[in-house]
C-alpha cells in the first residue's frame, strides 16, 4: 500500500473456534453450503472430490480403548496473511492470472471465479486443503435451484473456489450502514453463515484488530492455537482447546522437540 493510504479503518477479520464447545454436528458445513450455493453430487463420500468450504475434521489421540479421545475441528479457509503479514498468503502469490487476491482492508483472501482458469496451483500451495476445484458442472436436481442465494454466483465447472468468510454478507451489511448514514458496520452485522448457524456457539467471528470485538480477547486465550504456525502462514483462524493433545495436533513437531502447547499464563 502506498504511503498516506494507511488508515484506521483497516480490519483483519478472523475467527476463533472453541473446540471444547464444538460437537462436530456439521450445522456449520451445511449453513455454508446453503449460503454459498455449493453444488452436490449423488456420491459425496470421496472427501477429496467433495466441495465443502468448511469441513469438520475428526481428530483422535491415537490411544487404545478406553483411553481414546476424539475432537472435532471445523476448518474454513484460514485467510492466511502470510509471512510478515504482508498479505502474501501461500495461495495468493502463486495464482498466475490474479484470480485470487488478499484485501488489506478486511484481511480476506478472495477468489474471482470468472478470472480463474483452473490451473489449481493455489490448491497445491494450500496446506490446509481449503481450496476446492469444480470437477463437475454444477447441476441441481430439478427444482432445487430455487433455493440458490442471489448474493453468491454459482461457479462453473473447472474453477477453484473456497471460503471467503461470507464476504457478501459484509457487502450487504455495508449497504445497510450506508442507508443509515454510517460508513462502518457493527460486529454483529457481519457474521458468516457458519457462525450464525453453530448451535453450540462455538465459533466467534470479528475483527482481530478491534479490541471491542469478542475475537480480540479470545485469540489471547491460553487455550488458543493456530494450525501449522511453523509454516509462517499466519492464519486468521484461531482454535481453543483445553486438551493438550488437541493443541499439539495443530502443528508438526519433530521428536524430542519441546512442544509449546502448555496453556499460557495470563
Amino acid at each position, binding site marked *: 500500500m502506498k504511503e498516506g493510504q494507511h488508515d484506521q479503518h483497516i480490519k483483519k477479520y478472523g475467527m476463533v473456534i472453541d473446540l471444547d464447545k464444538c460437537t462436530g454436528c456439521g450445522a456449520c458445513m451445511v449453513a455454508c453450503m446453503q449460503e454459498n450455493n455449493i453444488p452436490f453430487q449423488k456420491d459425496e463420500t470421496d472427501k477429496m472430490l467433495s466441495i465443502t468450504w468448511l469441513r469438520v475434521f475428526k481428530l483422535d489421540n491415537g490411544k487404545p480403548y478406553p483411553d481414546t479421545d476424539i475432537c472435532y475441528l471445523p476448518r474454513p479457509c484460514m485467510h492466511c496473511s502470510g509471512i510478515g503479514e504482508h498479505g502474501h498468503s501461500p495461495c495468493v502469490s502463486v495464482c498466475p492470472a490474479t484470480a485470487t487476491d488478499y484485501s488489506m482492508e478486511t484481511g480476506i483472501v478472495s477468489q474471482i471465479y470468472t478470472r480463474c*482458469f483452473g490451473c489449481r*496451483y493455489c490448491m497445491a*500451495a494450500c496446506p490446509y486443503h481449503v481450496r476446492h476445484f469444480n470437477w*463437475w458442472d454444477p447441476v441441481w436436481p430439478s427444482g432445487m435451484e430455487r433455493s440458490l442465494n442471489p448474493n453468491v454466483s454459482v461457479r462453473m465447472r473447472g474453477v477453484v473456489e473456497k471460503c471467503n468468510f461470507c464476504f457478501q454478507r459484509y457487502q450487504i451489511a455495508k449497504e445497510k450502514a450506508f442507508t443509515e448514514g454510517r460508513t462502518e458496520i457493527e460486529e454483529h452485522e457481519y457474521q458468516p453463515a457458519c457462525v450464525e448457524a453453530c448451535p453450540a456457539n462455538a465459533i466467534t467471528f470479528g475483527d482481530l484488530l478491534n479490541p471491542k470485538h469478542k475475537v480480540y480477547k479470545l485469540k489471547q486465550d491460553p487455550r488458543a492455537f493456530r494450525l501449522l504456525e511453523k*509454516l509462517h502462514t499466519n492464519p486468521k483462524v484461531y482454535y481453543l482447546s483445553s486438551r493438550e493433545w488437541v493443541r499439539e495436533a495443530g502443528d508438526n513437531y519433530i521428536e524430542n522437540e519441546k512442544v509449546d502447547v502448555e496453556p499460557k499464563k495470563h
Partner: protein
Amino acid sequence: MDSELIPEGVQRCSLGKFLLWIGVVSVVLLWGVYGMILCWAKGLNQTNMNNAFGFALWIWADLAVIALGGGAFFTGFLRYIVGKKELKNIINYAVLIGFICYSSALLILAIDIGQPLRGWFIFWHANVHSMLTEVAFCLSCYFGVLTIEYLPLILENRQIDKIPFFHNLSHNMHEVMAVFAATGAFLSFFHQGSLGGVAGVLYGRPFGFREGVLIWPWTFFLFTWSAAACGPCFTILITKITEKVVGKKLVKDNVVELLAKISGWMLLTYITAKIIDTLYWAYVTAPKMGFTLDQFYTNNPGSAYGYWILIMEVIVGGVIPALILVTRKGRQTPLLLWIAVILACVGVSLNRWVMVLQVLAVPVLTFENWFTYFPSWQEIATTILPVAYGTILISLSYRYLPIFPQESELNPPPEELLSEAETVQKEAIEQDMASQDLTPAESAG
C-alpha cells in the same frame, strides 16, 4: 511415390511400409486424442485427480518432457554461444526433440486446465509474482523460438527448397540463428528455473519448499541445471534409438561423445548440488517446519513414496550416470553409454515426479493421512499421446527432412542409386526393393 520429397543422397523405406508404421502409431495417437476430447467435453472429472492432487500425472509429464527437451536449448547454447562446431551435426535433431517436447507440454497444459478457453488469461491478466506465469511466458516464447529453429529444417525439404523465397528464408534464418538460440537459451534458463520454483516457493508444502538466503527457491537453479545436464542425454538416447530403429549410424561418435562428456560434467556438478540441497533440506529447512526426512519417506501407502525414490533419483539416476559419462571409457563403451543416458533420463523424470506428486502426497496437517492417486486411463492416454505424436513427427522429419547432416557420409549409397534425377528409375528400384524380402532393419531405413 514420395521420392521427390526425400532428401538427396539418403535411402528411405517404401511408402507403404512407412504408412503402415505411421498407421500403427496413429492408433495410439487417436486413443490419446479420444481421451483428450473426453477431458475437454466432460471436464476434468474424467481424471483421477482430486482436491489433494490438483497437480498430477500431466504436470509431471509436463515437467519431465520439458526437462528432457532441455537438450535443445543446451545444445543450442553450446553450438551457437559457446561455439562447439561439432554439435551442428546433432543440433537439428536436438531442436526437433525439443520442439516435440515443448509442443507436447503446451498441449498437455491445455488439457490440464479447467477452463482451456480462458487459458490466455495467464498472459493477459498476468500475475508477475507467480512462478507459473513465468513458466507460461517463457514456455510459449521458447516454443516460438523452437518453431523458428525447426522451420528452416522444414524449408530444407527438397521440394520446398526449390521455391526461392523459402530457400532464402531458410538461409537467412540460419544466418541469424545464433540470436534466436541465445534468446532461447535465456528463456529456457528462466522457465526451467521457474518450473523448479513452482514447488520451491510453496511455503505451505514442507516437502517442496526450498527458499534460501536470497529469498529465492533453490529448486530454480537445480531444475535449470538438471535440464541442461539430462536434456542432452535424452537427445543422445533418442538418437541412439533412432539409429537402432533405422539400422544406420546417423551421427558420428565424436559428436555424441562430446555431448556426453559435457552432459556428464553437468550431471556431476548438478548431483553434487542436489546432494547438498537434500542434506540442507533434511537437516535445516524441513525440521524448522516440524518435519523429519523420515516423515517424508515412510509410512506411506504401499511405500509408493519410500526412500527408494530418493535413492533411485540421486544415486541411481544421478551419481552413477554422472560417473559413467565423465570417464572417457564409460562414454566410449556403447553399453555403458546406453545405461548412463537411460539412467540420467530416469533420474531427472523421477526428480520431477517427486517435485509434483510427493509434494502433494505428504500430509501437512497432522490429522490427515498420505494422499494416494492413480491416474485414470484418460490421463494415461493423453500422456502417451505426445509420445505417439513425437514418434510420427520424428518419422516424418527423418523421412523428408535433412535432419542428420552426416547421414549420407556415414551411409554411402550404392552407386546405381546416385542418379537422383531419374525418378522413374528410382521408383522402379524402390518397387524392386519392396518386392524383395528385406530384413526389418533395412525396411525401416
